[in-house]
């Protein structure tokens, strides 16, 4: 497994090869991963921003990201490709903070996402958007393994044509995770003949936990469509605007990826 260390904004690559590209932008490190298993260690007293670009085609990928004590990582994940089985694990140490914004456009994907809140006071904010016209399954496991840990999982999906979009989100707070906070907020818009299943599960083993969840599958609000159409916007364009708004409303997209993602969403109508 390739190992990449990002220490105090400097990327130190051990096992760097043609399949991993690291470019320095002014404010964020930019990581392109198109093969192999990768282990990334992030350690810093300052905030770190990382853009991770993964292009998959017909293969499995394993990524592990370890966020060291007192490190805050802002990660933007952009995933594209076809026929993928992916595993990604985030390990958070004491006082580690992870903010993930993620946009995924992979046809036929099964992704297992594990977030291990191992350190006291560690926290994750996970903002995820996806659009699909094929089958996608996302299995998420958020394990609160220590006290005063926080997780906020916000997921948005749009399914089109005959797509099947499934989210299985499991938040597990062990007895050792006292005084932790858990939130899940999942919403999917189903269009055409597509279907979706959201399985929000909370496994709580301590009474001091504050936990919430919501899961909504439905269509766009007719009042929203009426509002846009009342300004002369055609039904087709109204849907485009609403889909774009729904998907991008929850994630913060870095400037460097903005155009690509807009083009990606638009490609569903070309």
């Amino acid at each position: 497994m390739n190992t990449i260390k990002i220490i105090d904004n400097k990327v130190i690559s051990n096992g760097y090869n043609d399949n991993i590209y690291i470019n320095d932008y002014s404010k964020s490190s930019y990581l392109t991963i198109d093969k192999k298993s990768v282990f990334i260690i992030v350690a810093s007293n300052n905030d770190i921003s990382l853009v991770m670009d993964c292009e998959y085609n017909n293969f499995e990928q394993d990524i592990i990201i370890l966020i060291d004590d007192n490190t805050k990582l802002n990660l933007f994940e952009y995933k594209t490709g076809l026929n993928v089985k992916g595993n990604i694990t985030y390990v958070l140490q004491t006082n580690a903070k992870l903010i993930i914004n993620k946009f995924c456009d992979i046809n036929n994907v099964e992704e297992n996402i594990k977030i291990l809140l191992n350190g006291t006071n560690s926290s994750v904010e996970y903002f995820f958007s996806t659009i699909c016209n094929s089958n996608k399954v996302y299995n998420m496991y958020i394990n609160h393994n220590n006290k005063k840990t926080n997780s906020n999982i916000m997921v948005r999906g749009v399914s089109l044509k005959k797509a099947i979009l499934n989210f299985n989100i499991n938040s597990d707070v062990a007895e050792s995770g006292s005084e932790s906070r858990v939130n899940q907020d999942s919403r999917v818009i189903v269009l055409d003949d597509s279907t979706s299943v959201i399985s929000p599960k909370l496994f709580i083993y301590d009474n001091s936990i504050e936990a919430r969840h919501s899961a909504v599958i439905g269509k766009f609000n007719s009042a929203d469509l009426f509002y846009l159409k009342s300004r002369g916007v055609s039904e087709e364009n109204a849907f485009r605007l609403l889909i774009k708004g729904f998907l991008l409303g929850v994630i913060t997209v870095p400037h460097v990826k903005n155009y690509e993602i807009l083009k990606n969403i638009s490609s569903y109508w070309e």
Partner: protein
Amino acid sequence: MLMLNINDLNVKINNQNILNNFNININNNEIHAIMGPNGVGKSTLAKVIMGSDECEITSGEIIYKGLSINKMAVEERSRNGIFLAMQSPIEIDGVTNSEFLRVALSSKLNKNIGLYDFIKKLESAISDLNMNENMPHRSINKGFSGGERKKNEIIQMKILEPAMIVLDEIDSGLDVDSLKIVGKNIMDYFNNNFNGASILIITHYPRILEYIKPNFVHIMLDGKIVKTGTYELALEVEKRGYDFIKDEAR
């Protein structure tokens, strides 16, 4: 020239009669105000003019510039110059005001609008309404106060340049200063529109009518107009309430 002509209109929402043989004629360059207690069908009137599919027209006709629009799609009504400033403008997260308005204006004019000209026009409208200059980059009405949402409706009106303007409680949520700004912008638009415009304003209070001076004030009860007068009628309603009109209507 007759701008809007509604003849014997009957409208149901959720199978319940809301408008009952409603009639009104609005000429070009006229301002009509409609007042009435809650639940008499004022907002339904606004929605049915705009073509909301919540409203089922069971009989009667809405004629705009000489053509029946009963079956015209919402977006077509807008492109032909009908504008509804909504009572409760909705919030759409992720869609910026500028993107939305540029798509709307391009749809109306049936051509792509140059970015420079559009931004210039939008910035001018924002400045006129005394709104924050970041407004174009914010999601539609997200985090806007009630007053900002109403101002945003008027910015949209100024960009889209409609001929028939329906204002559904545009004054609700506006503070005294904002009311003055909104009133002035609507009247500036009305007075300086070379092609002519008409306004139908729905309100509960005569204060907005100090700025948007109506040619006619209509009182609605039970889904139809029961009394028509001038601005003085609005003042009388504020003073005496609607009971005297209800008594007259009996």
